[in-house]
Structures are given as C-alpha cells and as structure tokens.
C-alpha cells in the first residue's frame, strides 16, 4: 500500500483550443515528498497543477490520487466512465490548494474561511470544526487574527490564512500555485517559512514556484518544465547543481546570478 504514490500523473495532455499547453507529462509524488515545478511563464506549470485537482480537465492522460483515478472510474464490466462531479469533489478534498491570489472569501472572518469547508463539506460539528481550524491557524502563526476579516490582513497573512484553509481539510497533499508570486519580498519569507514547516512535518507537497533557493532547499525532487514537457527532473542538487539540458541551464542562470 505504501508503495502507491500519493499523486501519480500519467501522460497528461492539455490543450486550450489549438494551443497545446501540456504535451504528455508523467511523474510520481511519493507520500511525504516535496516536488517543485520550475520553468518559465507559459511552460505549463500552473496548468499542470490545476489539472491535478481538476480545476482544468486534462485533454488526455490521467491523475491518480492514492491510486484512485481522478477523472474516471472503472465500471463493473471494466469500462472507464467519466466521474460525476460529486465524486471529483470528494477526491478534491484530499488535495489542498493554495493560489497565487490567495482567493480568500472576504465576507467571512479568518476563522470563518478556515472553518467553512470542514464544516460544510466534511460535515464536522461546529465545535470540532472550530477546534480544527484554530489548530490550523496556530500552525500558520495567525491564532490572534481569527476574528479579523481578510481585508485587514497583509498579503503574507492572507496567504497564510489560505494555507490554513487548505490544511483544515486534512488533505493527503498540498498544491501550491506560485504562492508567493504576488507578495512583496519581505512578506514572501513568512509564507515560505510556513511552507518549510509543512515540508519538515512530512506533508506531501507539489510546489510551483519561482523561489529557486526555496525549491533547492526544501524539495526532494525538482521538475523543470519547458513547452509543456518535463525537460529535466531530478534531485535538487542535480537540477540546480549540474543541469543536463541547455534550456534548464539558461533558465537557472537568470535566477541564480
């Protein structure tokens, strides 16, 4: 059982009309591992991440969450049937997603944002959900802001609330979509610190990022995407230390000067 990867991406393609964004991407994320995806804008990193939790539907290929296919199910007679949206929603609960733009719900307090999904989606009782939410807020060091509205928080604090909101679903893996890209440098660090803590605690994570130092330090594996394909992959010391592909070398040279 433990040999089944937490997330398995198998030959995923995605096109928007005539534009092929992903052209056959495959990789596994073992349980407890941190996989970083780097690459230039438009290389398909975010699209790939969004395919994993079905915010985008792959044009071909399949994603497995703990061995369970995300987009189809196998009927009794062995035929593959597309999953109804209710089942996809059930699988999505296992994937916490953190967005570049935080996407908090502004009409709810911080606690309200974190409590919402455990309470309404997982059906926890009010007290249980609040307890869980407070524990998640403690992990992102925002217990004292529980009763504030998001508009009163800094960008870094908002992003940490978004992380707590995703954690509150007790997901099997966390997906970070450029979580620090819209933050000022001084606010980036507080978010990266929280992500570092999560990685240390053994959280399975896929991180799309432009923070090369963070990727190098935290990841077990790094994928470099180029033109919708994995151009290079390996442990961080290899990808950052001795990249084999010329494109990867060029890309990194811009960041590591």
């Amino acid at each position, binding site marked *: 059982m433990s040999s089944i990867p937490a997330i398995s991406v198998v030959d995923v393609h995605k096109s928007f009309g005539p534009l092929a964004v992903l052209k056959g991407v495959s990789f596994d994320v073992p349980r407890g591992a941190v996989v970083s995806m780097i690459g230039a804008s438009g290389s398909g990193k975010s699209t790939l991440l969004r395919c994993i939790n079905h915010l985008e539907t792959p044009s071909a290929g399949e994603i497995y969450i703990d061995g369970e296919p995300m987009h189809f199910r196998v009927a009794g007679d062995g035929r593959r049937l597309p999953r109804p949206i209710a089942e996809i929603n059930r699988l999505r609960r296992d994937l916490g997603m953190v967005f570049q733009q935080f996407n908090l719900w*502004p009409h709810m307090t911080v606690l309200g944002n974190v409590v919402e999904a455990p309470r309404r989606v997982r059906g926890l009782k009010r007290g249980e959900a609040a307890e869980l939410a407070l524990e998640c807020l403690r992990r992102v060091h925002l217990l004292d802001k529980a009763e504030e509205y998001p508009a009163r928080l800094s960008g870094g604090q908002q992003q940490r609330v978004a992380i707590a909101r995703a954690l509150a679903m007790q997901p099997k893996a966390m997906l970070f979509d450029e979580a620090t890209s819209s933050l000022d440098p001084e606010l980036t660090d507080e978010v990266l610190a929280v992500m570092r803590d999560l990685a240390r605690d053994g959280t399975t994570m896929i991180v799309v990022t432009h923070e090369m130092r963070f990727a190098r330090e935290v990841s077990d594996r790094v994928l470099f995407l180029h033109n919708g394909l994995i151009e290079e992959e390996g442990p961080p010391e290899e990808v950052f230390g001795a990249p084999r592909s010329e494109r990867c070398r060029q890309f990194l040279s811009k960041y590591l000067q």
Partner: protein
Amino acid sequence: MSGALAEALNPALFWEYREILLKGLAFNFYVFACAAAAALALGLGAALLRVNRWRPVRWAGTLHVEIFRNAPDYVMVVWVHFVLPLLLGLAIGQRLEFPPFLSAVIALGLVYSGYFAETFRAGIQSIPFGQIEAGRACGMPERLILWRIILPQVVRRMLPEAVNQFVSLFKATTIVSLIAVPDLMYQVSMVTQQEMRPLPLYTGAALTYFAIIFLASSLVRAGAERWRQKVYA
C-alpha cells in the same frame, strides 16, 4: 388659491376615514411583499440562467429579462389580469379568472424580476472567479459555493441598487387599484366619490406614500451601509 391649498392640506377628512384607508394601505404592503418575494426568486433564477455556461440557457435568461423589464407596469397588470387567464383557459379548455390580488402579484413580480435579475447578474459576475475556484478546490459543490460564497457577497453589493428597485416596486403597487385591488389609492377614490373632496384625500395619500418610502429607504440604506463597512473596512 390659498383656500384650495388649505383644503388640500387639511388632514381632517383623511383622519376620519383612517380605518378604511389604513386597510387599503395594508393591501399595498401585501402586494409589495408578495411581489417582492416573487421578483427576488424569479430574478435570481433568471440571473443564474444568464450566467450559465450553455448559450441557449443564457438566451432563455436574456429573453426573460428583456420581456419583463421592457413591459410597462400598467400594461403588464392589465395583461395578466385580463389576457393571461384567457390564454391559460384556452390551453386547459376551462374558463379561468384570476383574483385581482393574484394578478397584481404576478404582474409586478414578473416586471420587477427583470430588474432584479440584472442586479443579481451584475453582482454574481463581480465576484472574483478565484473565490469560486477556491471553493471548488475545497471540494465544495456548486450549490454550496452559490449559497455560501457568491450570494452573501452579492446581497451586500446589490443592496443600494435593490433599495431603489424596492422603492419603485412599492410605488408601482399604487396602480393595482386599476384592477380593483382594494389598496390605498382604490379606497381614496371610493371615498372621494362619496365625499366629493379629492384635494385632501389625494394629497393625504401622496404624503402618506412619501413618508413611508422616505422613512423605509433611509433606514435600509443606513443599515446596509453599516453592514458593508463592517466587512470591507
């Protein structure tokens, strides 16, 4: 001239008939409340059609909005009361008649659902899409996203516009006397026929409507503003 003004502003006659006039006013409120509920429900439905991903569904929503928003209140009230029962009666092969109150509620509910639909639609489309995706990413079904994330914000955003529409709707309830709903205007015209003193009666009715609308909309606006500030400060 000043005699006429004094007569117009003399509240004695209005006061004398207060009981029957108040009953009439109650009908304005009944019609208003029922038509507002119908308009909100139909308006929300039409707005959801208007933002649906399938084009034919969107067209159906647009059709609803354009038909009812462009129908004058008066024409609609008369049409629903006199023509709609005939059409429905033909369809089911039976003579059909609507009570005036029902006709008034249907007609005004339909007309104002067109306005509310547009207000709802603008509100729904003003919610950043990322917030909806965040809900989906948490495994929330669309229905839950609508009720917990979209609508609470839409209601806050549309309140100032909705207050204006509620005011218009309340004003529009005065035309239901045309199909003999016994509202304030209907009672005033009845009393006028009896007393032959239109000046104080119609002036009294005008002042009553003004006072109610002014008070209610001021209160709602103040309350709505405080509510909005609490969250978006």
